[in-house]
């Protein structure tokens, strides 16, 4: 079930990135694509009846922990994700400043007009 949902989310994210003309929606689609990958890694590290990987001194030997390594990698991936989102947003704002639009096709038609006039 987890892996199927991961595939569906990857597909929806990619669909939004390809089809939407609005740049901000495109970035959100990219966020969904990224979230699917995060979900995939965390599901790999899941163990049934496991506890978070915090090892106490008097724990029984056979206690199950979920895998810490994918968690650390995904923790850093989330933070990098927000950094890329912020940079993308500032680029979109700068695009809007020049072309007065964040719609892809309007921007392309404006670029073509500029080429004709110059």
């Amino acid at each position, binding site marked *: *079930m*987890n*892996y199927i*949902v*991961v*595939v*569906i*989310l*990857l*597909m*929806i*994210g*990619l*669909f*939004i990135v390809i*089809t*939407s*003309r609005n740049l*901000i*929606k495109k*970035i*959100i689609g990219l*966020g*969904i694509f990224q*979230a699917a990958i*995060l*979900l995939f890694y965390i*599901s*790999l*590290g*899941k*163990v*049934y009846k*496991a506890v*978070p*990987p*915090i*090892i106490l001194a008097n724990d029984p030997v056979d206690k199950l922990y*979920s895998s810490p*390594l*994918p*968690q650390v990698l*995904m*923790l*850093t991936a*989330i*933070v*990098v994700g*927000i*950094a*890329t989102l*912020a*940079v993308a*947003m*500032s*680029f*979109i*704002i700068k695009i*809007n400043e020049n072309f007065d639009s964040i*719609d892809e096709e309007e921007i392309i038609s404006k670029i073509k007009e500029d080429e004709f006039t110059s």
Partner: protein
Amino acid sequence: MMLMNDLFTSFSINISEICLENFFLLLLVFVSCAIAVSRSLLKIVILSSMFSMIMAALYLLMAAPDVAMTEAAIGACISTAFIIKSMQATNSNEFKQKLVSLPNIISFFIIIIFGEVMIYAFIDLPEYGQTFSPVNSYLSQYYIQNTPVEIGISSSVAAILGSYRGFDTLGETLVIMVAGIVVYFLMLQEKKELDVSIYKQGEIIYQSKIWMTDYIRVILLPISLIFAFYIQVHGEISPGGGFQAGAIIASVYIFFYVANNDHDHDLSNIIKLLFKFSLVGFLIYISMAIFTALMGGYFLQYYAITGSILGHKIGIFIIEIGVGITIFSVMLMIFLLLTHYARNFQMVREVK
């Protein structure tokens, strides 16, 4: 009989776990479908915030509280605030989008093929939740068994983040700092000389928002700050650490600035201060690394600080503080930059 009983309890625990997870997973699919068909940016932003909250609940169910905390603070709060501010700065909400058109249908079929390929690749994966799947066997077991012995702290996640893969986290902090610098130089502009009287029309709305600001300042701010400092300081023995604490403090202050949207308040001084702060956080991290090298160890080998296991504890504590400062200041700085820009943008629009 005993065996039967045992089997039954384990079975029922598995069933309830799976049911809850599947419920959230279905919700996730519905929300992302709603994002795909929606044509209003405000709706999309709120739905994506909801998406992040569901993701956080799922991470918690999968026994990953650190990731859940980060996702809740960063995905649900900070990224929503960023997107809303950039919507204001580009003055866009509703947009036209045809769902059924020839390019969309073609891309739909391409994506179906992509999904089939992915499912074909996913068939070979080990079964979900097994104790001895490859991911849980070799390196993970090493980390779990050796964290108390080699590092001397209980949280395995903090041990990997700070010590085993400390170099990784160093690059991570650098990435955050660079993103902050990029946004700073792209968005910073001095306050334009414009007619200030336009501001004053928002005064009535501002009056009604005062109770909200007071509520945040008196109740929400102190409690959240205590929580965040607890997470920061107890990173080694409980879920949490620098990333989470920084993100929580930043999100509280973002909430504060959203509620207290006072236009006369000049933000550029705070932005410049936060910019310096973000550099300080990274400097703490890198000076810790250089300090260990000077003490006779390798780069980022905390063992060299005191020559015993205690060195790891001190080293991880200090670098977590550096990470926390960087995350907090970069996130808040980007938000304030976007706010500043959006205000100027709206003002220029109104004058035109």
